């Protein structure tokens, strides 16, 4: 098998180590608030800074480097035209308080994006303000909170299935809701358990569909009925929307509130951790609760509307991550109805194909048909004294990013694999071969992996023990 992958390895000091302290002179600020010593940041020739960061880029792995099957994250190829669009001066050099008359281009694009997302989600209205998926989640819960409050209802419970993304329970706690977690049955929501859990205290039931095992929750409409009958609202976590575009919508499945992850479904880059964008969509009944402003069309022009009757107010400064919105807008326009549907079909085909190739190599819990991702169990590795983590590290040596590991929690030694639609059959075949090849390797090789990356296995325990979180904290 091919393990020729070699990541660059540079031994370099931190730039921060090269600072030389000096005193500040001629500080115009009043004595009491003036800095005495200049910040200890090095003065370096520009090209040395560029060279340093260029070398760092060579010690990093992105989708443009290779296959990145990180489950739940939808690491599809990021088209380059969106980067070009987001670098145009008309897009970058515009202040958030720029007059509406002078920002018609932005407003028109945002208005059209609100509408496209509403169509793709089967929702009535959309706010583009949330900056990320988790931010969209908490915004959705704030909307539900206000809605129940306006109906004079004290509902303090939110129900989640045990397959939920970690952000779901964390969002629930941030707003001090009580969390009610219901166990799954054969990987999907157990309707009986939901029926039992739902009641007068139910504020919201949150799920993603397909769920984190990649299984489509075909009882979605019955769930909606149960929750609505109890007086609660349904929240759709949009992380897995890439699996259903053009086939169904959260709206069609009777969800009331949802978020979109533009950085997953609509091809905007993940930026080493962000920025993303997490617009929120709602039904007509909840439209007046959205954060303000939203963009509206008035005559031939567009304007920011701050006047929504029941608005929760704001969740972020200004109007959202505009440049990310612009990229997603470009992606949706370029792909169109046909392209988006094809993306979903191909994502699901790729996922099922790779699942078929790998299910003999490791164990596949639950029935086979998957949507855009699937979860394997690495429990048989234990016989060799290995863990899923070891396998993940060895995959790096073969030039692949590892799948998401140890999630979802209900699968022992889980590996969550999402190939996305942009990968070819050859790539998937190569990945499957690497998997099989690793399973034939001796334990030592796997345990000592990775060897081909910029550094060897990183000591995470030491990082916690030392807790050096900046150069300043070294001593």
């Amino acid at each position, binding site marked *: 098998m091919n393990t020729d992958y070699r990541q660059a390895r540079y031994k370099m000091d931190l730039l921060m180590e090269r600072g030389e302290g000096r005193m500040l002179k001629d500080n115009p600020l009043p004595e009491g608030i003036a800095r005495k010593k200049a910040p200890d940041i090095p003065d370096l020739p520009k090209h040395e800074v560029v060279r340093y960061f260029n070398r760092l880029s060579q010690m990093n792995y992105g989708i443009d480097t290779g296959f990145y099957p990180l489950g739940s994250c939808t690491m599809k190829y990021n088209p380059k035209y969106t980067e070009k669009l987001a670098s145009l001066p008309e897009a970058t050099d515009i202040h958030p308080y720029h007059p509406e008359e*002078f920002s018609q281009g932005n407003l028109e694009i945002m208005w059209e994006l609100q509408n496209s997302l509403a169509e793709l989600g089967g929702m009535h209205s959309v706010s583009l303000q949330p900056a990320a998926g988790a931010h969209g989640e908490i915004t959705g819960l704030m909307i539900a909170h206000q809605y129940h409050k306006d109906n004079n209802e004290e509902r303090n419970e939110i129900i989640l299935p045990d397959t939920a993304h970690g952000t779901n329970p964390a969002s629930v706690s941030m707003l001090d809701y009580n969390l009610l977690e219901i166990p799954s049955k054969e990987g999907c929501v157990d309707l009986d358990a939901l029926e039992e859990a739902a009641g007068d205290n139910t504020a919201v039931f949150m799920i993603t569909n397909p769920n984190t095992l990649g299984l489509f929750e075909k009882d979605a409409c019955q769930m909606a009925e149960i929750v609505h009958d109890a007086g609660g609202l349904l929240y759709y976590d949009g992380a897995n929307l890439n699996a259903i575009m053009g086939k169904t919508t959260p709206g069609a499945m009777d969800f009331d509130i949802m978020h979109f992850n533009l950085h997953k479904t609509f091809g905007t880059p993940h930026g080493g951790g962000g920025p993303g964008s997490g617009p929120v969509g709602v039904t007509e009944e909840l439209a007046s609760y959205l954060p303000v402003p939203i963009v509206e069309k008035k005559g031939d022009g567009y304007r920011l509307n701050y006047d929504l009757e029941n608005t929760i107010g704001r969740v972020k400064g200004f109007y959202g991550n505009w440049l990310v919105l612009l990229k997603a807008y470009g992606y949706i326009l370029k792909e169109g109805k046909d392209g988006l549907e094809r993306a979903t079909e191909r994502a699901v085909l790729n996922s099922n194909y790779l699942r078929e190739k790998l299910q003999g190599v490791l164990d596949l819990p639950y029935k086979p048909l998957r949507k855009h991702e699937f979860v394997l169990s690495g429990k048989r590795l234990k016989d060799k004294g290995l863990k899923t983590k070891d396998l993940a590290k060895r995959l790096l040596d073969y030039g692949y990013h590892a799948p998401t590991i140890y999630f979802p929690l209900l699968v022992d030694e889980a590996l969550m694999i999402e190939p996305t639609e942009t990968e070819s059959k050859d790539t998937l075949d190569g990945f499957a071969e690497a998997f099989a090849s690793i399973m034939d390797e001796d334990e030592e090789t796997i345990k000592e992996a990775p060897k081909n990356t910029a550094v060897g296995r990183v000591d995470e325990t030491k990082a916690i023990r030392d807790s050096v979180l900046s150069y300043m904290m070294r001593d």
Partner: protein
Amino acid sequence: MTKREEKDMLDLLEIDEVEQLFEDIPEEVRVELDMPEGLTEMELMSKVKDKLKKNHIESSSFLGAGIYEHFIPSAVQEIIGKSEFYTSYTPYQAEISQGMLRALFEYQSLIAELTGLGAVNTSMYDHSTALAEAVLMSTRINRKGDTFLMPKNTHWDHDPILKNYLRGKDIDMKLVDHDDKGQIDIEDLKEKIGDDTIGFYVGSPNIFGILEEEVDTFKDLREDNGCVMVVGTNPLILSLMKPPGEWGADIVVGDSQPLGIPMAYGGPSVGMFSCRKKHIRRMPGRIIGETEDSQGKRAYCMTLQTREQHIRRERATSNICTNQALMALASAVFTFIQGSTGLERLAKENYEKAHDVARRINELEGFEAPYFKSEFFNEFTVKTPMDSDSLYGECQKRDVLPGVPLDKKEKFSSLPSSMLTAVTETKTEKEIEKLIVALKEVVA
């Protein structure tokens, strides 16, 4: 994908068409999208460019209030445009992500150096959300109180956002007045602070562009009342201003946008977040730590992850997952290109230009600048001789955006007709002259 490829894949799955993979989606929830068909890249580019051209960006703008126009060296875009960086995600696999990890550690180190607090995370969404998270963190540090004190002289977006983040909690957000110099009214603060106080916020520069001078008083009030002090600031002034860590801050927040990030209609920017070392386990967000690899080589990884949602779920310190990492990288590259000397020069240039423009506006008949007589950085209040909206509208016709009308914001409606004017290094003499002429003409 070729037909052949697709057929091979379907064969392995023993099915005839892709549609069979969607048999688990019931008929009654099926939809047909009502959207146009796709475009070629050439069509797309021209279509979107035409729309963007409807923006008019040539005005001489003196708008600030949280987002500032600064010059960005070309090298910044060049670096964050490297696809090894921008097409990666959160560095879950440390060994193959050392580049981003190290770059973010450098960012954390820079922010620590500027704020004077050693523990820094890799970013929150923006200033407002960083502040809201800081208040939530304050409740984890100080469990005895039920009130958080917010001065009135803060951005109008902060209050509604904080209120939303405090939903479901029995925590009262109490406003503290400002004095006639635009600074926090110390007497009001002293009156409102007490045993029930979780913490208080100090913005410096505050929304009026003013640097709060009573820093020793804040320090004492924090200690005497055993509460948390959260400071919000602009990282650029921190090259001249005494670091908040030296005057008692427990948490420092702000926006790194002035460091190498375009205005971009307000986003993406970077929520800056740093705190005292003793509070690290209560912090929200991703944090990069320094460590070693199996060979004893220096290495970096995400650390203290048991605070985070993907490990701790409902017991996490925050729900944040995706953040603004690439923009943090932009700020780091920008700051290293400036260096300590360049940063100081830039801050001084902003300070001097803003003071010069304030003087010139003050000389105009009917204007008062700054309206609040306190030390300011690169932004100041202007009392206007006519309604601030009308003044703005008239200036706009002359292609000048003189500043954000301030008294039109609900929380500042008791102020006389006024605006908030920002002057950065990007303002040329020609633009400044254009502003002065416009103001003169409009009120004439």
